[in-house]
């Protein structure tokens, strides 16, 4: 399986994501922002960082990068896409996911480990997890405060599209939301960084459960 990782100017978790893809047992493929080509990826990760310096608004400029056109088409056709941190922000800005990520309510950057609960196993990125399973994942963001209007929020809850929920809310997110998916459930955005806990050498590989989920989906 080929897993593409987009690289925007200012992405800084791209190399970590590429490394994690190797650890999950797939072939990492670097997707340069200026090339409108997914290079035959079977799944795509939009990694964290500060694309275009987060200038204007996190993710606001990256959504216009050339690589986004084929990515949007891939997503519409049901291809599995995972946005992590800044990647989540990019997918929201590109309207591939609903809602927006505002500044943390305490107005500070938050780097910590947080406990989250997997709220649905019915996405390609959580298929290998149990619903209700608790994971400890790292967060590192300044704009991770998930916001959506009341109607959207109700729909997300009713349709089981909240993917991860914080057990200790680090940023003020509505309904403690740490991750959501689109209507077709193939596009997932999460603020925590599964790629940072993909290697037991660093103390935990709980993030591999999320990343490896996509492998199971691919064999169906």
């Amino acid at each position, binding site marked *: 399986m080929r897993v593409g990782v987009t690289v925007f*100017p*200012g992405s*800084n*978790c791209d*190399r*970590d994501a590429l*490394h*994690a893809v190797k650890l999950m047992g797939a072939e990492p493929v670097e997707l340069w922002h*200026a090339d409108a080509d997914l290079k035959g990826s079977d799944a795509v990760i939009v990694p*964290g*960082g*500060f694309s*275009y*310096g*987060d*200038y204007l608004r996190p993710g606001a400029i990256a959504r216009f990068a050339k690589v986004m056109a084929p990515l949007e088409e891939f997503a519409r056709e049901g291809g599995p896409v995972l946005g992590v941190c800044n990647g989540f922000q990019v997918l929201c800005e590109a309207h591939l996911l609903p809602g927006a990520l505002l500044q943390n309510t305490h107005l*500070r*950057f*938050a*780097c*910590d480990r947080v406990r989250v609960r997997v709220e649905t196993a019915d996405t390609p990125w959580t298929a290998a997890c149990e619903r209700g399973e608790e994971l400890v994942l*790292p967060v*590192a963001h*300044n704009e991770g405060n998930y916001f959506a209007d009341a109607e959207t929020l109700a729909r997300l809850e009713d349709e089981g599209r909240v993917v991860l929920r914080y057990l200790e809310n680090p940023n003020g997110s509505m309904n403690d939301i740490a991750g959501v998916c689109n209507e077709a459930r193939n596009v997932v955005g999460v603020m925590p*960084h599964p*790629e*940072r806990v*993909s*290697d037991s*050498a*660093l*103390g935990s590989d709980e993030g591999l459960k999320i990343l490896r989920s996509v492998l199971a989906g691919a064999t169906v």
Partner: protein
Amino acid sequence: MLGLSDFEYDRILELLGRVPNFLELSLFSVMWSEHCGYKNSRPLLSRFPNEGPRVLQGPGENAGVVEVGDGWALAFKVESHNHPSAVEPYEGAATGVGGIIRDILAMGARPVALLDALRFGPLDDERNRYLFREVVRGIGGYGNAVGVPTVGGEVEFSEAYSGNPLVNAMCVGLIRTENLMRSRATGEGNLVVLLGSKTGRDGIHGATFASGELTEESESRRSNVQVGDPFAEKMLIECCLKLLEEDLLVSLQDLGAAGITSSASEMAASGGVGIDIEVEKIPRRESGMEPFEAMISESQERMLAVVEPGDEEKVLAFAQRYGIGGTVVGRVAGHGDLRVIENGEIVGSVSAEYLADAPVYEREIVRPEYLAEVQKLDLETIPEPDDYNEVLLKMLAHPNLRSRRTIFGQYDHEVGTNTVVRPGADAAVMRIKGTKRGFAMTTDGRGRHCYLDPRGGGAATVAEAYRNLSCVGAEPVAITNCLNFGNPEKREGYYQLAECIEGMSEACEVLGTPVVSGNVSLYNETARGPIYPTPVVGMVGVLEDVTCHATPAFKREGDMVVVLTGTMRPTGESPLAGSEYLEIVHGRVAGVPPKPDLAAEKRASDLVRSMVRSGLIDTAHDLSGGGELVALAEMALSDGIGLEYSVPEIEFMSGHGRLLENLLGEKGAGFIIAFPEERWDEVQDALSDFAYDNIGYTGGERFELEGLIDLGMEELREAYERDLFGVPGEVLGGSEAVG
């Protein structure tokens, strides 16, 4: 504005044999500032030992480099950004981080870790709180975006730093030994390429500004402080690493203090060549800039590269790919001058050697009078406390000892996925992907100790760093340092500088950790007086097997806890002298702290390290600020596992002196270790030649010292985990109500 003395001006006249024009004088002004020219510190700095078996590059380059093994090396350096941070804390700190990253990049290394040593005035003052908050935001704002994890550092608060904060940033980079880059320009006819951002008027005469005392008017020099753009830096890093990978660079140098002038003249002087800069080709951010402004601007996020003719097209194409500027601005010349050419006309020409050869001032080292006064300490005035519960809570809540979680929670310490031991331990540990190896790093400074006893404090600073690395299981290899001092033209400042360097050098020799890079920040004085003399040591070490490391946290219930009691030579010095206890509880900074026993420091540290490396222990912490009691509380608080301590009768304790001195004294060479009881026989064998106390067991929800202390972990946590950025005394959700 130019900061040159009459003597220096005469010397310039003599060297040139003519009157320099304003541009030339500006070049001298910046290159002969203390910041660039080390004119007061150079003779003293030569005292530092700088050779060792792992040293690949000592002082004189952009950073020191040591060998790790398996073909890997570490480039590292610490640098100050004190003056800019005093007047514009966010940008001052941010550009301090940006600047030190480029120093590491100039060695050809990928920057992989940042640490910050910070000092501020007390937090009950609003201005100090503002400086502290904005400096931390600036470090995070830059480091987080640029994608280099901030893995360690330290902070202390004292009146001595009111109005003159210290912001020292350290960067560590990783490089294959064969790819080591040097900043030496060579090859007549080679092209000089300016990479990165455009040049503006920001930071004109920043180096000169940093080489004077801070005054009331300093605030008006905010325009001397540059503005950072971490996004531009990130792209500059990736572009330079790509150019190095493609083998397109002859030489690489960062642009820091004094901008192109400093970079070009240093590259020329070390290569024994000249450089012609065609100043009109330097891309400008604003119009109407004079040649001298373009030459000494300290605009950030720029690097200077030397490339062979024919390669420039490739280099510029890569710059374009990474979205950064790339312009050929000059060439390497056979003459030995830094020549500034504007539209074909030479507008300034000075020998690069002259610029690199600032005059040197050697001064007399005279013991200042304040020492006799502050070294007086009558222990009779320091009674045994009535209530140790209250003392411990008060100390844990003090900003000097409180948890740093609210600081490092604002720094991304995991990006890069190499961080094995995160902030909060004695030292940060990182792995090297694809090998079993790792490395560890720490920064340490002991300003109060150096103030009370400059030589002893200098040695103790190095010893503390050595202990910290040993605790995590790393073999200490070398140090970088940032010498933060007052005005060297005054007797007190020069004495402190000379004596601290002597103490540090002695320690470096005994401990086998040479100095491979460093930076000097003098003139840290305000109308209130000088700062504490504060040499900051950044030490790096190597782990052969990164999985064998230790942290301070108690890890299991029922572990045995043993204190290696360190040594106290019978000199009559009390370990309470200069201690945190004396300052926090009695409001006094006085006495002569025990002289570090360097041989004992080495022996104890080496023992602890060998126990960690063999896997015998995974829990270790050194004794430093707050002594044994605070160290034990920190270990318990890390993961919330309590302690039951059976206090031995005082005559049976292996330390000397009173109970208070044993529990809260700071005597050096001490450690606390914990391990499962079944290893006791093995541990006992390892400890056979050492003085130690077997004090009790981990476990439970309480922190108990038999008959002295009985506190719930929750009470300890409330004191220790208070937000450092809160307003002292203000009740915030009840958390500030205690104490």
